[in-house]
């Protein structure tokens, strides 16, 4: 019985984190972006600096009519938001926030995370195809092309850390982490974070959405709660990417003075801030620039990092 209770408490905590953290990231994006652009952002909902803006948005989305275009493939159209959202919830199960504070410690946790995150992109491809709209289809195709080119540097950079730690388990990697891994794995960290951003289709890698040319890409035809699911998937993806970068490259719960989980949260939200900052600072990359960055920039860098990890690992032991 205590084991069942333990599992139940962990699952409830994970679902709560899944429901709360993306909203915090979303609110942070509203406010940080507004202040970077010399605006105030949401100020009314909830009273204090518009803290309840996203809850109000959620209520609004639920009330809206759920429109499915006549030319759409109804089943796939309905499934797509779920396929986009659920993988990020599943991934959260294996991300450690403190010593022993993890849903499940999988032996091949790193591979699990990368595999499941790749499934999420299927959602946006499905949405793009099933909408029966040429802009959506183009967005879906761009998503597919982007995933294919950025998956490789992502996996290579992650495997460099696995090599350094000698394990694929995420808590195991954090336990093996030392402060000097920061400079040692720095290239891999940058590659992982950049490729992850591209996989989430965040600006400056938002060519699949590109509202100035293809409206909203795969999400063009979505309204109401289904559209809200796509937005939630995006913010959950930001949280998952930041948490993973924190766990793999910044030492997870390691840090002086403060307790472990606090350090983990601090690192996650510092990275979320960087994600927002990049969105405000950089213009969107063109499709050919996107592909060039992946194949001519990130893949060689990831290979350099792998070689560096291997050399140091062999010489140090």
């Amino acid at each position, binding site marked *: 019985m205590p084991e069942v209770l333990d599992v139940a408490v962990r699952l409830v905590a994970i679902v709560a984190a899944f429901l709360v953290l993306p909203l915090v990231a979303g609110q942070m994006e509203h406010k940080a972006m507004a202040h970077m652009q010399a605006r105030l952002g949401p100020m009314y909902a909830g009273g204090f600096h518009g803290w309840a803006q996203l809850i109000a948005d959620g209520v609004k989305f639920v009330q809206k009519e759920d429109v499915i275009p006549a*030319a*759409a*493939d109804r089943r*796939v159209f309905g499934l797509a938001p779920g396929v986009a959202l659920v993988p990020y919830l599943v991934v959260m199960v294996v991300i450690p926030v403190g010593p022993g504070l993890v849903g499940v410690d*999988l*032996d*091949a946790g790193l*591979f*699990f995370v*990368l*595999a*499941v995150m*790749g*499934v999420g*992109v*299927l959602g946006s*491809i*499905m949405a*793009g*195809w*099933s909408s*029966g709209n040429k802009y959506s*289809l183009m967005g*879906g*195709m761009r998503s*597919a*092309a982007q*995933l*294919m080119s950025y*998956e490789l540097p992502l*996996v290579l950079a992650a495997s460099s850390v696995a090599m350094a730690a000698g394990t*694929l388990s995420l808590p195991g990697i954090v336990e093996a982490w030392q402060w000097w891994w920061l400079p040692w794995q720095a290239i891999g960290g940058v590659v992982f974070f950049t490729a992850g951003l591209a996989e989430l289709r965040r600006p400056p890698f938002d060519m699949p959405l590109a509202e100035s040319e293809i409206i909203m890409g795969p999400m063009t035809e979505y309204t109401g709660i289904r559209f809200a699911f796509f937005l939630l998937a995006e913010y959950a993806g930001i949280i998952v990417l930041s948490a993973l970068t924190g766990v793999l490259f910044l030492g997870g719960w390691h840090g002086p003075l403060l307790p472990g989980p606090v350090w983990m949260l601090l690192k996650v939200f510092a990275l979320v801030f960087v994600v927002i900052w990049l969105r405000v600072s950089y213009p969107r990359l063109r499709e050919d620039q996107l592909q060039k960055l992946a194949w001519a920039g990130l893949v060689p860098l990831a290979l350099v990092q792998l070689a560096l990890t291997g050399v140091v690992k062999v010489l140090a032991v």
Partner: protein
Amino acid sequence: MTEAVPSYLSPTGQEIVFLLLGAMAVGSALLVVTTRQLVHAALWLVVCFGALAGCYLVLTAEFVAWVQVLIYVGAVIVLLLFGIMLTRAPIGRTADLDSGNRAVAAVVAVATAAVLVTVVVDGFRNAYAPLDPGAGSAGELGSAIFRNWVLPFEALSVLLLAALIGAIVISRTDIRGRD
């Protein structure tokens, strides 16, 4: 490998799950070849690969299961969908999906399945392998590949390299063959 064989009449939970996943894999694979909608075929293939990964998981081959999802669902299907969308991806039924070679293909498929099933049934008639958790973990698999199976591994990597170079040569227009 040959210990006391448990009765088939009282299956364990693992066996039931394995059978259900197997049925799911076969069912979705049949849908892949029978559906009249091109993109639906690719999406049913996702279900098929997912069920297969589930089978690996039940057999304690954790690492193989995640690699299956990463490579097949995450990369091969995405590539397939990209290819379909790049050429033609109509919503709704397509009339000309059936190939003239249907009968031949069915015969070949049934024959292959018959050979495989016969070999497996004949080779492992009453053999029973207990499932130890952790036997298919990344560590075990890595040491097996790099200690016992290095030669096949290297041969495979040379094969893949050859395919890679071949793809580059074919796709580049400034490399010409001898006329």
